[in-house]
C-alpha cells in the first residue's frame, strides 16, 4: 500500500514537469497550428541561461526567473523572426504541409548546435533548491523528497497563474479568442499576430520552467530534454492537443502511469509504455480525452 502511495506521489512530481511541457506545446499548437518540436531546444536554451545564473548566484530561484524570461524572449523571437517568415514563404506546393514541422526540427537542431558551441556537451547539474533526500515515514525512507514537493508546488503555482491569466484577464481572453476563432478575434479588434507572439512567449517561459525543474533532478546537456519533449507531446495528445486542461490532465495521467510501470514492471518498459499509450489514444480516441466528440481540424 505504501508503495502505491509512493508511486502516486512520484508520479505527480513527474507529471508536473510533463504538464508544463505539454502546456507549452498546446499553447503554440492552438495559436499557430504547429507542433513546435523546437520547444525542447527553447526549453534547453532557457535552462542553460537558468543554469548560468543559478550557478553564479547560487540561488536557484533567480536562475528559474531568468530561465522564464529567456524562454519567453526566445519564444517570442522564434515566432516573430522565424514563423512569420516561414508562413510568408513556404505556403504552397507539396511541401507546404510539412514545412512547419521540418522548420521547427531545423530550429531544434540550430538551438542545439548553438548551445553545444557555447556551453559544450558536458553534463551540467544545477544546485537543487531543496534536498533530494527522501522523507522518512516511521522507520522507512521513501524516494519522495522535498525537491519533489517543490516541483509539484512550483508547477501548481504556475498552473494557477496561467489559469488566472487565461480566465480573468483581457490578454487571456484575447489569447483564447485568437486560438479558437482568429477571424472573429480580428473583427473584435484584437491584433492577432501580436497576440500569437505573446502566446509563444508564454509557452517559452513555461517550457523554461519545465527545463529547470527536470534538470534539478537530473543533468543538463544539449540532448537532455528530448525525452521530455516526447512525453510532453504524448501528454498533449492524450489531452487532445487543443485543451490546456486536457494537457495538464494528460500529463498527470501519463506521469503516474509511467511511474507505476517504472516501479512495478521495470525501467526499460517505461518508454514502450508511453509509446503504447500514445498509439492507443490515437486509435481509440484520436481527439483526446477532453474532446466532446467533435473532430477538429488538424
Amino acid at each position, binding site marked *: 500500500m505504501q508503495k502505491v502511495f509512493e508511486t502516486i506521489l512520484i508520479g505527480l512530481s513527474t507529471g508536473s514537469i510533463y504538464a508544463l511541457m505539454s502546456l507549452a506545446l498546446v499553447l503554440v*499548437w492552438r495559436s499557430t*497550428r*504547429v*507542433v513546435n*518540436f523546437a520547444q525542447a531546444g527553447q526549453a534547453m536554451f532557457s535552462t542553460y541561461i537558468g543554469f548560468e545564473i543559478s550557478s553564479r548566484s547560487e540561488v536557484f530561484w533567480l536562475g528559474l526567473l531568468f530561465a522564464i524570461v529567456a524562454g519567453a524572449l526566445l519564444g517570442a523571437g522564434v515566432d516573430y523572426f*522565424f514563423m512569420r*517568415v*516561414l508562413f510568408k*514563404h*513556404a505556403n*504552397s*506546393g*507539396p*511541401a*507546404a*504541409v*510539412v*514545412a512547419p*514541422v*521540418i*522548420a521547427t*526540427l*531545423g*530550429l*531544434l*537542431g*540550430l538551438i*542545439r*548546435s*548553438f548551445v*553545444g*558551441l557555447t556551453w*559544450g*556537451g558536458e553534463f551540467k547539474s544545477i544546485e537543487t533548491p531543496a534536498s533530494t533526500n527522501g522523507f522518512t515515514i516511521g522507520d522507512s525512507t521513501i524516494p519522495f523528497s522535498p525537491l519533489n514537493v517543490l516541483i509539484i508546488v512550483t508547477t501548481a503555482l504556475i498552473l494557477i497563474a496561467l489559469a488566472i491569466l487565461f480566465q480573468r484577464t483581457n490578454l487571456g481572453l484575447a489569447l483564447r479568442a485568437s486560438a479558437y476563432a482568429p477571424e472573429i478575434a480580428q473583427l473584435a479588434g484584437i491584433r492577432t499576430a501580436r497576440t500569437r507572439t505573446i502566446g509563444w512567449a508564454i509557452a517559452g517561459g513555461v517550457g523554461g520552467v519545465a527545463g529547470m525543474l527536470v534538470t534539478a533532478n537530473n543533468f543538463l546537456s*544539449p540532448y537532455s530534454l*528530448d*525525452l521530455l519533449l*516526447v512525453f510532453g*507531446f*504524448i501528454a498533449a*495528445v492524450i489531452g487532445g*492537443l487543443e485543451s490546456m486542461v486536457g494537457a495538464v490532465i494528460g500529463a498527470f495521467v501519463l506521469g503516474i502511469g509511467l511511474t507505476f510501470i517504472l516501479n512495478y514492471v521495470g525501467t*526499460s*518498459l*517505461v*518508454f*514502450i509504455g*508511453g*509509446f503504447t499509450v*500514445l*498509439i492507443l489514444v*490515437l*486509435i481509440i480516441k*484520436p481527439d483526446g480525452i477532453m474532446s466532446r466528440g467533435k473532430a477538429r481540424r*488538424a
Partner: protein
Amino acid sequence: MRKKILLFIVLGWVLLIVGDRVDELRVYQGAQIAMYTIALASIVLLTGYSGQVSLGNGAMMAVGGYAAALTLTNLQTPIWFAFLMAVIAASLFGALLGAAAARLSGPYLAGTTLALAVGLPAIANQFTFLGGEPGILFDVGFPPERLGEDFTQYKWFFWIASSIALVALFITSNILSSRFGRTWQAVRGNALAAELAGVNSSRWKILAFTISSALAGLAGAVFAMNISLVAPGAYSLALSFALVTGAVLAGISSLPGVAFGALILVAIPEVADALAGRLGDADKLNNYLPGLIVSVLLILSVIYTPNGPGENLRKLRHKRKAH
C-alpha cells in the same frame, strides 16, 4: 524504357570506374552516399509523393538493419537473402505503421514517428537477442578472392551498396512515374477529390508507407553493412533528422535530387571538419559545427525553397514568361 535501362547501365559503369580510381576514404564515402540515396528515395516517396511526414525513417531503417543482421548471424544465409529479409521485415513494419498513420494528420503523424525515433533504443534494449546498446556485428564477409588481393573491404561494400542503390532507384523511379506515383500525388494534393475519383486514400497511404519502409529497410541493411554493425545508436534521432534534411535539400518531391541530397549529407561533416580546422580545432566546433550547418541549411531551404530548387526554377521561368 529501354533508354532508362541503358542510362542505369551507363551509371553503373561510371561508378565502377570511379570506384577503381579513387582512394579508400572516397570509396567508403561512396558507399555511404549510395546508402543515403536509397534512404532519401524512401522519404521522397513517402513525404514528397504521398504527403505523409515521417520523422521516424531512422526507425524503419533500423528494422531493416536488424532483420538483415539477425538473418545473417542466425541463419548464415547468403548476403542477398539478408537484404531481401530486410526489405520484407521493413515493409511489414511499414504496413503496420502505415495503418496507424493513415488515421493521423500531419502533426500527429510527425509527433508519433518522432516518438518512435526517440524511443527506438529503448525498444532495442528491451530484447537481449537484439544485442542491447552495443548491438550486433554485421558481417557480409570478405570480397571474393578472384577480385584480387588489392580489392579492399570498402570497395566491396561500395560495389554492393551502389548496385543496390541503382536497382532501388530504377524501381522507385518506375513506381513514381507510374499511376502509383500519380495517385499518391493526387491524395496529397486533395484527398477528397482523389476519393471521389475512386481512390481509397487510406489504402494508398498505407501502401506508400509500406513501400517507403521497404526502401528504408534496404537502406538500413546497407548502412549496417557499411559499418559492420547494427546498434540502436546507429539509427538515432540524428539520422532521422539528417534524412529529412537531405530530402528537403534535394527537393522533397523530386527523385533525381536524392543523389545530390545524399552527397550533401556525406559532405557536410567533411566541410564542417575543414571549417573547424580553420576556425581553431576546438572540441566544441568539431562536435557541433556539422549540426549547425545542417540546421541552417535545413531552415534556409525550408523557408526559401520548400519544394526543392527545381520548383523555384520553374516559378522563375514562369514569371519570366509572364513578363
